[in-house]
Protein backbone atom coordinates (compact mmCIF):
# COMPACT_ATOMS: atom_id res chain seq x y z
CA UNK A 1 0.00 0.00 0.00
CA UNK A 2 1.34 3.42 -1.02
CA UNK A 3 1.70 5.31 2.27
CA UNK A 4 1.82 8.67 0.52
CA UNK A 5 -1.56 8.06 -1.11
CA UNK A 6 -2.96 7.05 2.25
CA UNK A 7 -1.60 10.30 3.66
CA UNK A 8 -3.32 12.34 0.94
CA UNK A 9 -6.56 10.41 1.45
CA UNK A 10 -6.42 10.97 5.19
CA UNK A 11 -5.72 14.71 4.79
CA UNK A 12 -8.61 15.05 2.37
CA UNK A 13 -11.03 13.20 4.65
CA UNK A 14 -9.98 15.09 7.76
CA UNK A 15 -10.10 18.47 5.99
CA UNK A 16 -13.58 17.77 4.59
CA UNK A 17 -14.75 16.11 7.80
CA UNK A 18 -18.37 17.27 7.50
CA UNK A 19 -18.84 15.78 4.06
CA UNK A 20 -16.89 12.68 5.07
CA UNK A 21 -19.05 12.18 8.16
CA UNK A 22 -22.28 12.40 6.13
CA UNK A 23 -20.88 9.97 3.59
CA UNK A 24 -19.71 7.56 6.27
CA UNK A 25 -23.05 7.76 8.09
CA UNK A 26 -24.95 7.05 4.84
CA UNK A 27 -22.76 4.07 4.03
CA UNK A 28 -22.90 2.78 7.62
CA UNK A 29 -26.70 2.94 7.62
CA UNK A 30 -26.88 1.21 4.26
CA UNK A 31 -24.73 -1.64 5.51
CA UNK A 32 -26.12 -1.66 9.05
CA UNK A 33 -29.77 -2.36 8.31
CA UNK A 34 -29.42 -5.69 6.51
CA UNK A 35 -26.31 -6.72 8.50
CA UNK A 36 -27.96 -6.08 11.84
CA UNK A 37 -31.20 -7.83 10.89
CA UNK A 38 -29.38 -10.84 9.44
CA UNK A 39 -27.09 -11.15 12.45
CA UNK A 40 -29.79 -10.74 15.08
CA UNK A 41 -32.05 -13.19 13.26
CA UNK A 42 -29.15 -15.65 13.16
CA UNK A 43 -28.42 -15.18 16.87
CA UNK A 44 -32.13 -15.49 17.74
CA UNK A 45 -32.46 -18.57 15.54
CA UNK A 46 -29.31 -20.11 17.03
CA UNK A 47 -30.31 -19.53 20.64
CA UNK A 48 -33.93 -20.59 20.23
CA UNK A 49 -33.00 -23.64 18.13
CA UNK A 50 -30.24 -24.63 20.56
CA UNK A 51 -32.70 -24.68 23.44
CA UNK A 52 -35.10 -26.79 21.41
CA UNK A 53 -32.36 -29.17 20.27
CA UNK A 54 -31.30 -29.72 23.89
CA UNK A 55 -34.90 -30.50 24.86
CA UNK A 56 -35.79 -33.52 22.72
CA UNK A 57 -39.28 -34.32 24.02
CA UNK A 58 -41.86 -32.46 26.06
CA UNK A 59 -44.91 -33.96 27.69
CA UNK A 60 -47.96 -31.90 28.53
CA UNK A 61 -51.73 -31.74 28.41
CA UNK A 62 -53.15 -31.81 24.88
CA UNK A 63 -53.58 -28.32 23.52
CA UNK A 64 -51.32 -25.70 22.02
CA UNK A 65 -47.88 -27.06 21.07
CA UNK A 66 -46.60 -23.53 21.02
CA UNK A 67 -47.80 -22.68 24.55
CA UNK A 68 -46.41 -25.93 25.89
CA UNK A 69 -43.01 -25.28 24.27
CA UNK A 70 -42.87 -21.68 25.49
CA UNK A 71 -43.80 -22.86 28.97
CA UNK A 72 -41.61 -25.95 29.25
CA UNK A 73 -38.50 -24.53 27.55
CA UNK A 74 -38.61 -20.78 28.06
CA UNK A 75 -40.85 -20.46 31.18
CA UNK A 76 -42.76 -17.79 29.28
CA UNK A 77 -46.32 -18.93 28.78
CA UNK A 78 -48.40 -19.50 31.92
CA UNK A 79 -50.51 -22.49 30.98
CA UNK A 80 -53.44 -23.51 33.13
CA UNK A 81 -53.69 -27.14 32.01
CA UNK A 82 -51.97 -29.50 34.37
CA UNK A 83 -51.77 -33.20 35.01
CA UNK A 84 -50.97 -35.41 37.98
CA UNK A 85 -47.36 -35.96 38.93
CA UNK A 86 -48.18 -39.66 38.76
CA UNK A 87 -47.75 -39.41 35.00
CA UNK A 88 -44.12 -38.51 35.58
CA UNK A 89 -43.67 -41.34 38.06
CA UNK A 90 -45.14 -43.73 35.47
CA UNK A 91 -42.73 -42.38 32.91
CA UNK A 92 -39.79 -42.95 35.26
CA UNK A 93 -40.89 -46.56 35.66
CA UNK A 94 -40.72 -47.03 31.89
CA UNK A 95 -36.96 -46.35 32.14
CA UNK A 96 -36.72 -44.80 28.65
CA UNK A 97 -34.35 -41.98 29.55
CA UNK A 98 -33.96 -39.03 31.88
CA UNK A 99 -36.95 -36.84 32.63
CA UNK A 100 -37.71 -33.84 34.80
CA UNK A 101 -41.08 -32.34 35.75
CA UNK A 102 -41.82 -28.67 35.22
CA UNK A 103 -44.43 -26.62 36.95
CA UNK A 104 -44.43 -22.86 36.96
CA UNK A 105 -47.20 -20.49 38.02
CA UNK A 106 -45.47 -17.95 40.22
CA UNK A 107 -42.82 -15.29 40.10
CA UNK A 108 -40.41 -13.63 42.47
CA UNK A 109 -40.02 -9.97 41.42
CA UNK A 110 -41.05 -11.04 37.92
CA UNK A 111 -38.51 -13.88 37.71
CA UNK A 112 -40.34 -17.15 37.00
CA UNK A 113 -40.38 -19.68 39.84
CA UNK A 114 -39.94 -23.14 38.35
CA UNK A 115 -40.76 -26.26 40.31
CA UNK A 116 -38.69 -29.20 39.15
CA UNK A 117 -36.50 -32.05 40.35
CA UNK A 118 -32.72 -32.48 40.60
CA UNK A 119 -32.75 -34.42 37.30
CA UNK A 120 -33.38 -31.14 35.48
CA UNK A 121 -30.00 -29.69 36.50
CA UNK A 122 -28.14 -32.83 35.50
CA UNK A 123 -29.88 -33.12 32.14
CA UNK A 124 -29.32 -29.42 31.34
CA UNK A 125 -25.75 -29.60 32.66
CA UNK A 126 -26.36 -26.65 34.97
CA UNK A 127 -23.60 -26.07 37.50
CA UNK A 128 -23.54 -24.07 40.68
CA UNK A 129 -21.31 -21.04 40.85
CA UNK A 130 -22.10 -20.43 44.53
CA UNK A 131 -23.77 -22.33 47.37
CA UNK A 132 -25.51 -25.68 47.19
CA UNK A 133 -28.45 -27.33 45.48
CA UNK A 134 -31.79 -27.11 47.32
CA UNK A 135 -32.13 -29.88 49.91
CA UNK A 136 -35.08 -28.82 52.06
CA UNK A 137 -38.54 -27.45 51.54
CA UNK A 138 -38.58 -23.72 50.99
CA UNK A 139 -35.08 -23.55 49.50
CA UNK A 140 -34.40 -22.29 46.01
CA UNK A 141 -31.57 -22.15 43.48
CA UNK A 142 -31.31 -19.04 41.31
CA UNK A 143 -30.24 -18.57 37.71
CA UNK A 144 -27.45 -16.03 37.28
CA UNK A 145 -29.66 -13.21 36.01
CA UNK A 146 -32.34 -13.94 38.60
CA UNK A 147 -29.71 -13.69 41.35
CA UNK A 148 -28.48 -10.36 40.06
CA UNK A 149 -32.03 -9.04 39.55
CA UNK A 150 -33.07 -10.10 43.06
CA UNK A 151 -29.76 -9.07 44.61
CA UNK A 152 -29.63 -12.45 46.32
CA UNK A 153 -26.71 -14.53 47.51
CA UNK A 154 -26.70 -17.98 49.14
CA UNK A 155 -28.09 -17.72 52.68
CA UNK A 156 -30.34 -14.75 51.93
CA UNK A 157 -34.07 -15.03 51.36
CA UNK A 158 -36.44 -13.98 48.60
CA UNK A 159 -40.23 -13.63 48.58
CA UNK A 160 -42.54 -15.00 45.94
CA UNK A 161 -44.88 -12.40 44.44
CA UNK A 162 -48.45 -12.46 45.83
CA UNK A 163 -50.81 -14.01 43.31
CA UNK A 164 -53.33 -11.22 43.70
CA UNK A 165 -53.32 -8.59 46.43
CA UNK A 166 -57.12 -8.56 46.62
CA UNK A 167 -57.56 -12.33 46.54
CA UNK A 168 -57.55 -13.06 50.26
CA UNK A 169 -58.20 -16.76 49.80
CA UNK A 170 -55.40 -17.08 47.26
CA UNK A 171 -51.92 -18.41 47.78
CA UNK A 172 -49.78 -16.54 50.25
CA UNK A 173 -46.34 -15.34 49.31
CA UNK A 174 -43.61 -17.63 50.59
CA UNK A 175 -40.24 -16.56 51.91
CA UNK A 176 -37.66 -18.85 50.33
CA UNK A 177 -34.06 -19.32 51.35
CA UNK A 178 -31.49 -19.10 48.57
CA UNK A 179 -29.40 -22.29 48.66
CA UNK A 180 -27.25 -21.65 45.59
CA UNK A 181 -26.70 -19.72 42.38
CA UNK A 182 -26.15 -21.32 38.99
CA UNK A 183 -23.39 -20.46 36.53
CA UNK A 184 -24.55 -18.23 33.69
CA UNK A 185 -25.32 -20.27 30.58
CA UNK A 186 -27.15 -17.70 28.40
CA UNK A 187 -30.43 -19.61 28.33
CA UNK A 188 -33.80 -18.98 30.00
CA UNK A 189 -32.41 -20.93 32.98
CA UNK A 190 -30.47 -17.77 33.88
CA UNK A 191 -33.74 -16.05 34.65
CA UNK A 192 -35.43 -18.73 36.70
CA UNK A 193 -35.86 -19.32 40.43
CA UNK A 194 -35.74 -23.11 40.76
CA UNK A 195 -37.51 -24.84 43.64
CA UNK A 196 -38.38 -28.41 44.43
CA UNK A 197 -41.80 -29.60 43.22
CA UNK A 198 -43.06 -29.77 46.80
CA UNK A 199 -42.06 -26.16 47.49
CA UNK A 200 -43.97 -25.14 44.35
CA UNK A 201 -47.03 -27.04 45.53
CA UNK A 202 -46.81 -25.16 48.84
CA UNK A 203 -46.66 -21.90 46.80
CA UNK A 204 -49.83 -23.05 45.04
CA UNK A 205 -51.51 -23.51 48.41
CA UNK A 206 -51.72 -27.28 47.98
CA UNK A 207 -49.64 -27.82 51.06
CA UNK A 208 -48.99 -25.67 54.09
CA UNK A 209 -47.54 -25.51 57.58
CA UNK A 210 -49.06 -24.03 60.72
CA UNK A 211 -49.20 -24.37 64.51
CA UNK A 212 -49.78 -27.88 65.80
CA UNK A 213 -53.55 -27.76 66.34
CA UNK A 214 -53.49 -30.92 68.42
CA UNK A 215 -51.46 -29.08 71.04
CA UNK A 216 -53.67 -25.99 71.18
CA UNK A 217 -56.48 -25.57 73.66
CA UNK A 218 -59.91 -24.19 72.74
CA UNK A 219 -59.60 -21.08 74.93
CA UNK A 220 -57.91 -18.85 72.33
CA UNK A 221 -60.62 -19.44 69.70
CA UNK A 222 -58.37 -21.16 67.21
CA UNK A 223 -60.05 -24.56 67.65
CA UNK A 224 -63.66 -24.84 66.56
CA UNK A 225 -64.22 -28.51 67.21
CA UNK A 226 -62.23 -31.44 68.45
CA UNK A 227 -63.14 -35.12 68.26
CA UNK A 228 -61.11 -38.20 68.92
CA UNK A 229 -59.93 -38.38 65.30
CA UNK A 230 -60.23 -34.83 63.94
CA UNK A 231 -59.56 -31.24 64.95
CA UNK A 232 -61.39 -28.39 63.20
CA UNK A 233 -59.35 -25.21 63.30
CA UNK A 234 -60.69 -21.70 62.75
CA UNK A 235 -59.33 -19.19 60.22
CA UNK A 236 -57.39 -17.65 63.10
CA UNK A 237 -54.76 -20.30 62.44
CA UNK A 238 -52.32 -18.53 60.13
CA UNK A 239 -50.17 -20.65 57.82
CA UNK A 240 -46.42 -20.17 58.04
CA UNK A 241 -45.05 -17.82 55.39
CA UNK A 242 -41.54 -19.15 55.73
CA UNK A 243 -40.17 -22.66 55.89
CA UNK A 244 -37.29 -23.13 58.28
CA UNK A 245 -35.73 -25.89 60.32
CA UNK A 246 -38.09 -25.36 63.27
CA UNK A 247 -41.33 -25.47 61.29
CA UNK A 248 -40.57 -27.60 58.23
CA UNK A 249 -41.96 -30.74 59.82
CA UNK A 250 -45.35 -29.05 60.19
CA UNK A 251 -45.73 -28.70 56.38
CA UNK A 252 -48.10 -31.19 54.88
CA UNK A 253 -50.41 -31.74 51.90
CA UNK A 254 -54.12 -32.35 52.11
CA UNK A 255 -54.12 -34.61 49.08
CA UNK A 256 -52.39 -37.71 47.81
CA UNK A 257 -49.01 -36.59 46.48
CA UNK A 258 -49.48 -38.70 43.34
CA UNK A 259 -52.41 -36.47 42.38
CA UNK A 260 -50.60 -33.15 42.79
CA UNK A 261 -50.21 -31.14 39.57
CA UNK A 262 -47.37 -30.50 37.18
CA UNK A 263 -47.59 -28.69 33.85
CA UNK A 264 -44.93 -30.41 31.75
CA UNK A 265 -42.27 -33.09 31.75
CA UNK A 266 -39.03 -32.68 29.82
CA UNK A 267 -37.70 -35.97 28.51
CA UNK A 268 -34.22 -36.84 27.29
CA UNK A 269 -34.78 -40.35 25.85
CA UNK A 270 -31.83 -42.70 26.07
CA UNK A 271 -32.01 -43.59 22.35
CA UNK A 272 -34.05 -43.14 19.20
CA UNK A 273 -36.01 -46.30 19.84
CA UNK A 274 -37.07 -45.05 23.28
CA UNK A 275 -38.10 -41.71 21.77
CA UNK A 276 -40.15 -43.44 19.07
CA UNK A 277 -41.83 -45.73 21.59
CA UNK A 278 -42.66 -42.80 23.87
CA UNK A 279 -44.15 -40.82 21.00
CA UNK A 280 -46.29 -43.80 20.07
CA UNK A 281 -47.43 -44.37 23.63
CA UNK A 282 -48.44 -40.82 24.43
CA UNK A 283 -49.72 -39.50 21.13
CA UNK A 284 -52.90 -41.55 20.96
CA UNK A 285 -56.34 -40.21 20.16
CA UNK A 286 -57.76 -41.21 23.52
CA UNK A 287 -54.94 -39.99 25.75
CA UNK A 288 -55.16 -36.72 27.68
CA UNK A 289 -51.47 -36.00 27.24
CA UNK A 290 -49.37 -35.15 24.22
CA UNK A 291 -45.68 -35.69 23.65
CA UNK A 292 -44.16 -33.11 21.35
CA UNK A 293 -40.76 -32.49 19.79
CA UNK A 294 -39.99 -28.85 20.69
CA UNK A 295 -37.64 -28.55 17.70
CA UNK A 296 -40.61 -29.08 15.35
CA UNK A 297 -42.52 -26.29 17.07
CA UNK A 298 -39.50 -23.99 16.98
CA UNK A 299 -38.87 -24.76 13.30
CA UNK A 300 -42.42 -23.84 12.37
CA UNK A 301 -42.10 -20.67 14.47
CA UNK A 302 -38.81 -19.78 12.76
CA UNK A 303 -40.45 -20.17 9.35
CA UNK A 304 -42.62 -17.21 10.27
CA UNK A 305 -39.62 -15.27 11.52
CA UNK A 306 -37.85 -15.86 8.19
CA UNK A 307 -40.94 -14.86 6.24
CA UNK A 308 -40.98 -11.57 8.14
CA UNK A 309 -37.21 -11.27 7.60
CA UNK A 310 -37.62 -11.82 3.86
CA UNK A 311 -40.16 -9.02 3.82
CA UNK A 312 -37.79 -6.78 5.79
CA UNK A 313 -34.93 -7.72 3.43
CA UNK A 314 -37.00 -6.55 0.48
CA UNK A 315 -37.54 -3.27 2.28
CA UNK A 316 -33.84 -2.98 2.98
CA UNK A 317 -33.03 -3.57 -0.68
CA UNK A 318 -35.21 -0.59 -1.55
CA UNK A 319 -33.82 1.50 1.30
CA UNK A 320 -30.29 0.38 0.38
CA UNK A 321 -30.86 1.36 -3.23
CA UNK A 322 -32.01 4.82 -2.26
CA UNK A 323 -29.18 5.36 0.25
CA UNK A 324 -26.70 3.78 -2.19
CA UNK A 325 -27.98 6.12 -4.88
CA UNK A 326 -27.46 9.02 -2.52
CA UNK A 327 -23.93 7.83 -1.72
CA UNK A 328 -23.19 7.49 -5.46
CA UNK A 329 -24.48 10.99 -6.03
CA UNK A 330 -22.23 12.32 -3.25
CA UNK A 331 -19.30 10.45 -4.88
CA UNK A 332 -20.00 11.92 -8.30
CA UNK A 333 -20.43 15.41 -6.86
CA UNK A 334 -17.25 14.91 -4.86
CA UNK A 335 -15.37 13.85 -8.00
CA UNK A 336 -16.69 16.89 -9.82
CA UNK A 337 -15.68 19.18 -6.96
CA UNK A 338 -12.24 17.59 -6.96
CA UNK A 339 -11.76 17.98 -10.71
CA UNK A 340 -9.44 20.91 -10.15
CA UNK A 341 -7.38 19.01 -7.59
CA UNK A 342 -6.97 16.02 -9.91
CA UNK A 343 -6.07 18.44 -12.70
CA UNK A 344 -3.30 19.76 -10.45
CA UNK A 345 -2.05 16.22 -9.85
CA UNK A 346 -2.10 15.66 -13.62
CA UNK A 347 -0.06 18.80 -14.13
CA UNK A 348 2.47 17.62 -11.54
CA UNK A 349 2.98 14.42 -13.56
CA UNK A 350 0.88 12.10 -11.44
CA UNK A 351 -0.23 9.00 -13.36
CA UNK A 352 -3.91 8.38 -14.09
CA UNK A 353 -3.74 5.06 -12.25
CA UNK A 354 -2.42 6.78 -9.12
CA UNK A 355 -5.35 9.21 -9.15
CA UNK A 356 -7.73 6.29 -9.66
CA UNK A 357 -6.07 4.44 -6.79
CA UNK A 358 -6.40 7.52 -4.62
CA UNK A 359 -10.17 7.67 -5.25
CA UNK A 360 -10.58 3.91 -4.85
CA UNK A 361 -8.57 3.82 -1.62
CA UNK A 362 -10.64 6.69 -0.25
CA UNK A 363 -13.88 4.90 -1.07
CA UNK A 364 -12.51 1.58 0.06
CA UNK A 365 -11.58 3.20 3.36
CA UNK A 366 -15.09 4.61 3.72
CA UNK A 367 -16.58 1.20 2.97
CA UNK A 368 -14.27 -0.64 5.38
CA UNK A 369 -14.89 1.86 8.19
CA UNK A 370 -18.65 1.81 7.48
CA UNK A 371 -18.59 -1.99 7.54
CA UNK A 372 -16.64 -2.06 10.84
CA UNK A 373 -18.96 0.56 12.34
CA UNK A 374 -22.07 -1.31 11.24
CA UNK A 375 -20.72 -4.50 12.82
CA UNK A 376 -19.81 -2.67 16.03
CA UNK A 377 -23.32 -1.22 16.20
CA UNK A 378 -24.80 -4.65 15.40
CA UNK A 379 -22.80 -6.29 18.20
CA UNK A 380 -23.74 -3.46 20.57
CA UNK A 381 -27.42 -3.96 19.73
CA UNK A 382 -27.00 -7.70 20.25
CA UNK A 383 -25.39 -7.06 23.66
CA UNK A 384 -28.17 -4.64 24.52
CA UNK A 385 -30.83 -7.18 23.58
CA UNK A 386 -29.00 -9.93 25.46
CA UNK A 387 -28.73 -7.66 28.49
CA UNK A 388 -32.41 -6.76 28.29
CA UNK A 389 -33.53 -10.36 27.80
CA UNK A 390 -30.96 -12.42 29.65
CA UNK A 391 -29.07 -9.93 31.81
CA UNK A 392 -25.85 -9.93 29.77
Amino acid at each position, binding site marked *: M*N*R*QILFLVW*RYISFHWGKSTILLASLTLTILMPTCLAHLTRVFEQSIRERAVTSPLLLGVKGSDYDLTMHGLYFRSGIQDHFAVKAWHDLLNKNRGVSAPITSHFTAQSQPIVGTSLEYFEARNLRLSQGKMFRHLGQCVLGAKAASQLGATPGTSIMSDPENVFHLAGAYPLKMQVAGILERNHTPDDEAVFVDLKTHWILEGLGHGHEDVTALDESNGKILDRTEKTVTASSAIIPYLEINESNQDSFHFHAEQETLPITAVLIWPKDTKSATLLLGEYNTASGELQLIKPIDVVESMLKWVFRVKAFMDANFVLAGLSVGGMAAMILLLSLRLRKEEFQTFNCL*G*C*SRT*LILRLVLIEWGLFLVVAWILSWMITLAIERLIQYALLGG
Partner: protein
Amino acid sequence: MEIHIENLKFAWPHSDFRLEIPRLNIGSGQSIAIVGPSGSGKSTFLNLLAGMLPPLSGNLRIHGASLSGMSDHQRRAFRQDNIGFVFQDFKLVDYLNVTDNILTPWRLKESGASIDKPMRDRLEHLITQLGLKPFIHRPIQRLSQGEQQRVAIARALCLKPGLILADEPTGNLDPSNKTLVRDLLKQEASQLKATLVMVTHDRDLVDRFDRVIDFATFQPKQPLTTPAS
Protein backbone atom coordinates in the same frame (compact mmCIF):
# COMPACT_ATOMS: atom_id res chain seq x y z
CA MET B 1 18.66 20.48 -19.77
CA GLU B 2 18.74 21.56 -23.43
CA ILE B 3 15.64 21.99 -25.57
CA HIS B 4 15.50 21.52 -29.37
CA ILE B 5 12.40 22.40 -31.35
CA GLU B 6 11.86 21.95 -35.08
CA ASN B 7 8.70 22.79 -37.02
CA LEU B 8 6.58 22.52 -33.89
CA LYS B 9 2.92 23.12 -34.65
CA PHE B 10 -0.03 23.23 -32.33
CA ALA B 11 -3.65 24.32 -32.61
CA TRP B 12 -6.68 24.02 -30.39
CA PRO B 13 -9.61 22.20 -31.96
CA HIS B 14 -12.50 24.47 -33.01
CA SER B 15 -10.37 27.55 -32.45
CA ASP B 16 -8.44 30.06 -34.53
CA PHE B 17 -5.51 29.87 -32.19
CA ARG B 18 -2.35 28.33 -33.62
CA LEU B 19 1.27 28.17 -32.67
CA GLU B 20 4.11 27.47 -35.07
CA ILE B 21 7.77 27.41 -34.07
CA PRO B 22 10.06 26.62 -37.02
CA ARG B 23 13.20 26.25 -34.93
CA LEU B 24 14.20 27.02 -31.36
CA ASN B 25 17.18 25.81 -29.37
CA ILE B 26 17.64 26.53 -25.69
CA GLY B 27 20.91 25.55 -24.08
CA SER B 28 21.27 23.69 -20.83
CA GLY B 29 21.24 25.97 -17.79
CA GLN B 30 20.03 28.99 -19.77
CA SER B 31 17.40 31.33 -18.43
CA ILE B 32 14.79 32.33 -20.97
CA ALA B 33 12.13 34.97 -20.63
CA ILE B 34 9.16 34.59 -22.93
CA VAL B 35 7.18 37.67 -23.72
CA GLY B 36 4.46 38.44 -26.16
CA PRO B 37 0.91 39.67 -26.45
CA SER B 38 -1.98 37.83 -24.80
CA GLY B 39 -3.08 34.84 -26.87
CA SER B 40 0.28 34.51 -28.59
CA GLY B 41 0.74 31.00 -27.16
CA LYS B 42 3.20 31.61 -24.30
CA SER B 43 1.34 29.43 -21.78
CA THR B 44 0.56 26.86 -24.49
CA PHE B 45 4.27 26.67 -25.24
CA LEU B 46 5.04 25.92 -21.58
CA ASN B 47 2.33 23.23 -21.58
CA LEU B 48 3.92 21.71 -24.70
CA LEU B 49 7.33 21.74 -23.02
CA ALA B 50 5.82 20.12 -19.92
CA GLY B 51 4.20 17.41 -22.04
CA MET B 52 0.74 18.40 -20.87
CA LEU B 53 -0.25 19.06 -24.47
CA PRO B 54 0.89 16.89 -27.39
CA PRO B 55 2.12 18.86 -30.40
CA LEU B 56 0.18 18.59 -33.64
CA SER B 57 3.40 17.96 -35.54
CA GLY B 58 7.09 18.69 -35.45
CA ASN B 59 9.85 17.65 -33.15
CA LEU B 60 10.26 18.63 -29.52
CA ARG B 61 13.27 17.19 -27.75
CA ILE B 62 14.23 17.89 -24.16
CA HIS B 63 17.54 16.57 -22.91
CA GLY B 64 17.63 14.15 -25.85
CA ALA B 65 14.14 12.75 -25.22
CA SER B 66 11.52 13.31 -27.89
CA LEU B 67 8.27 14.38 -26.23
CA SER B 68 6.51 14.19 -29.60
CA GLY B 69 6.88 10.40 -29.68
CA MET B 70 5.91 9.76 -26.06
CA SER B 71 2.63 8.35 -24.79
CA ASP B 72 0.61 10.27 -22.23
CA HIS B 73 1.91 7.98 -19.49
CA GLN B 74 5.53 8.52 -20.57
CA ARG B 75 5.08 12.29 -20.77
CA ARG B 76 3.67 12.31 -17.21
CA ALA B 77 6.62 10.33 -15.96
CA PHE B 78 9.03 12.62 -17.79
CA ARG B 79 7.32 15.68 -16.34
CA GLN B 80 7.43 14.27 -12.82
CA ASP B 81 11.12 13.39 -13.06
CA ASN B 82 12.47 16.42 -14.92
CA ILE B 83 10.19 19.43 -14.80
CA GLY B 84 9.18 21.86 -12.09
CA PHE B 85 6.21 23.99 -13.08
CA VAL B 86 5.09 27.22 -11.43
CA PHE B 87 1.51 27.70 -12.57
CA GLN B 88 -0.13 31.04 -13.18
CA ASP B 89 -3.02 30.15 -10.86
CA PHE B 90 -0.64 28.38 -8.40
CA LYS B 91 -2.70 25.12 -8.42
CA LEU B 92 -2.18 24.53 -4.72
CA VAL B 93 -4.15 21.81 -2.95
CA ASP B 94 -6.66 23.34 -0.53
CA TYR B 95 -6.67 20.53 2.04
CA LEU B 96 -2.91 20.47 2.49
CA ASN B 97 -0.87 22.92 4.52
CA VAL B 98 2.23 24.74 3.24
CA THR B 99 4.67 21.90 3.96
CA ASP B 100 2.47 19.22 2.46
CA ASN B 101 1.80 21.30 -0.65
CA ILE B 102 5.54 21.65 -1.21
CA LEU B 103 5.95 17.89 -0.79
CA THR B 104 3.08 17.00 -3.17
CA PRO B 105 5.34 16.07 -6.13
CA TRP B 106 7.19 13.63 -3.86
CA ARG B 107 3.95 12.15 -2.55
CA LEU B 108 2.60 11.66 -6.06
CA LYS B 109 5.52 9.48 -7.10
CA GLU B 110 4.60 5.90 -7.94
CA SER B 111 7.14 4.54 -5.44
CA GLY B 112 5.26 5.98 -2.46
CA ALA B 113 8.56 6.18 -0.58
CA SER B 114 8.70 7.90 2.81
CA ILE B 115 10.13 11.40 3.04
CA ASP B 116 13.84 10.72 3.46
CA LYS B 117 16.58 12.82 5.05
CA PRO B 118 17.78 14.53 1.81
CA MET B 119 14.16 15.42 1.02
CA ARG B 120 13.64 16.85 4.51
CA ASP B 121 16.83 18.88 4.10
CA ARG B 122 15.62 20.08 0.70
CA LEU B 123 12.28 21.07 2.21
CA GLU B 124 14.02 22.96 5.01
CA HIS B 125 16.23 24.74 2.46
CA LEU B 126 13.28 25.81 0.29
CA ILE B 127 11.23 26.95 3.27
CA THR B 128 14.14 29.07 4.50
CA GLN B 129 15.05 30.44 1.08
CA LEU B 130 11.49 31.42 0.22
CA GLY B 131 10.71 32.83 3.68
CA LEU B 132 7.92 30.38 4.36
CA LYS B 133 9.00 29.42 7.88
CA PRO B 134 6.38 31.50 9.79
CA PHE B 135 3.46 29.67 8.17
CA ILE B 136 4.58 26.17 7.32
CA HIS B 137 1.57 24.58 9.05
CA ARG B 138 -0.93 27.18 7.91
CA PRO B 139 -3.78 26.18 5.57
CA ILE B 140 -3.32 27.47 2.04
CA GLN B 141 -6.50 29.58 2.12
CA ARG B 142 -5.06 31.67 4.93
CA LEU B 143 -2.04 32.78 2.87
CA SER B 144 -1.77 35.95 0.81
CA GLN B 145 -1.33 35.77 -2.98
CA GLY B 146 2.40 36.45 -2.63
CA GLU B 147 2.79 33.74 0.00
CA GLN B 148 0.86 31.27 -2.12
CA GLN B 149 3.08 32.12 -5.06
CA ARG B 150 6.18 31.33 -2.98
CA VAL B 151 4.66 27.97 -1.95
CA ALA B 152 3.99 27.20 -5.63
CA ILE B 153 7.64 28.01 -6.44
CA ALA B 154 8.90 25.84 -3.59
CA ARG B 155 6.75 22.96 -4.85
CA ALA B 156 8.13 23.36 -8.38
CA LEU B 157 11.71 23.24 -7.06
CA CYS B 158 11.10 20.45 -4.56
CA LEU B 159 12.41 17.55 -6.68
CA LYS B 160 15.40 19.53 -8.08
CA PRO B 161 14.12 19.60 -11.66
CA GLY B 162 16.43 20.03 -14.66
CA LEU B 163 13.86 22.28 -16.35
CA ILE B 164 11.90 24.95 -14.52
CA LEU B 165 8.84 26.35 -16.25
CA ALA B 166 7.16 29.39 -14.76
CA ASP B 167 3.93 30.79 -16.17
CA GLU B 168 3.71 34.44 -15.15
CA PRO B 169 4.85 33.77 -11.61
CA THR B 170 4.95 37.47 -10.85
CA GLY B 171 1.54 38.31 -12.27
CA ASN B 172 -0.18 38.88 -8.93
CA LEU B 173 2.69 40.48 -7.07
CA ASP B 174 3.72 44.00 -6.19
CA PRO B 175 6.90 45.37 -7.87
CA SER B 176 9.28 44.51 -5.01
CA ASN B 177 7.96 40.96 -4.74
CA LYS B 178 8.11 40.55 -8.53
CA THR B 179 11.84 41.18 -8.51
CA LEU B 180 12.24 38.96 -5.45
CA VAL B 181 10.41 36.02 -7.08
CA ARG B 182 12.32 36.42 -10.34
CA ASP B 183 15.64 36.50 -8.50
CA LEU B 184 14.65 33.49 -6.40
CA LEU B 185 13.81 31.49 -9.50
CA LYS B 186 17.02 32.57 -11.18
CA GLN B 187 19.07 31.79 -8.11
CA GLU B 188 17.51 28.32 -7.57
CA ALA B 189 17.83 27.50 -11.28
CA SER B 190 21.44 28.55 -11.17
CA GLN B 191 22.10 26.42 -8.05
CA LEU B 192 20.43 23.41 -9.67
CA LYS B 193 22.09 24.17 -13.04
CA ALA B 194 18.56 23.94 -14.39
CA THR B 195 17.14 25.55 -17.49
CA LEU B 196 14.60 28.24 -16.64
CA VAL B 197 11.80 29.23 -19.01
CA MET B 198 9.62 31.99 -17.60
CA VAL B 199 6.62 33.58 -19.25
CA THR B 200 6.03 37.18 -18.28
CA HIS B 201 4.15 40.22 -19.39
CA ASP B 202 6.46 42.43 -17.44
CA ARG B 203 9.27 43.64 -19.69
CA ASP B 204 10.99 45.27 -16.68
CA LEU B 205 11.87 41.81 -15.39
CA VAL B 206 13.53 40.40 -18.48
CA ASP B 207 16.85 42.23 -18.23
CA ARG B 208 18.49 39.56 -16.09
CA PHE B 209 17.60 36.62 -18.36
CA ASP B 210 20.07 35.09 -20.81
CA ARG B 211 17.58 35.34 -23.67
CA VAL B 212 14.25 36.94 -24.32
CA ILE B 213 11.93 35.32 -26.86
CA ASP B 214 9.03 37.33 -28.20
CA PHE B 215 6.17 35.02 -29.16
CA ALA B 216 4.65 37.58 -31.47
CA THR B 217 7.09 36.17 -34.03
CA PHE B 218 5.54 32.68 -33.85
CA GLN B 219 2.08 33.59 -35.20
CA PRO B 220 1.64 31.62 -38.47
CA LYS B 221 0.17 33.31 -41.52
CA GLN B 222 -1.89 30.27 -42.63
CA PRO B 223 -4.35 28.37 -40.37
CA LEU B 224 -3.20 24.92 -39.22
CA THR B 225 -5.17 21.72 -39.72
CA THR B 226 -6.26 20.32 -36.37
CA PRO B 227 -7.19 16.65 -35.73
CA ALA B 228 -10.76 17.61 -34.89
CA SER B 229 -11.31 19.96 -37.77
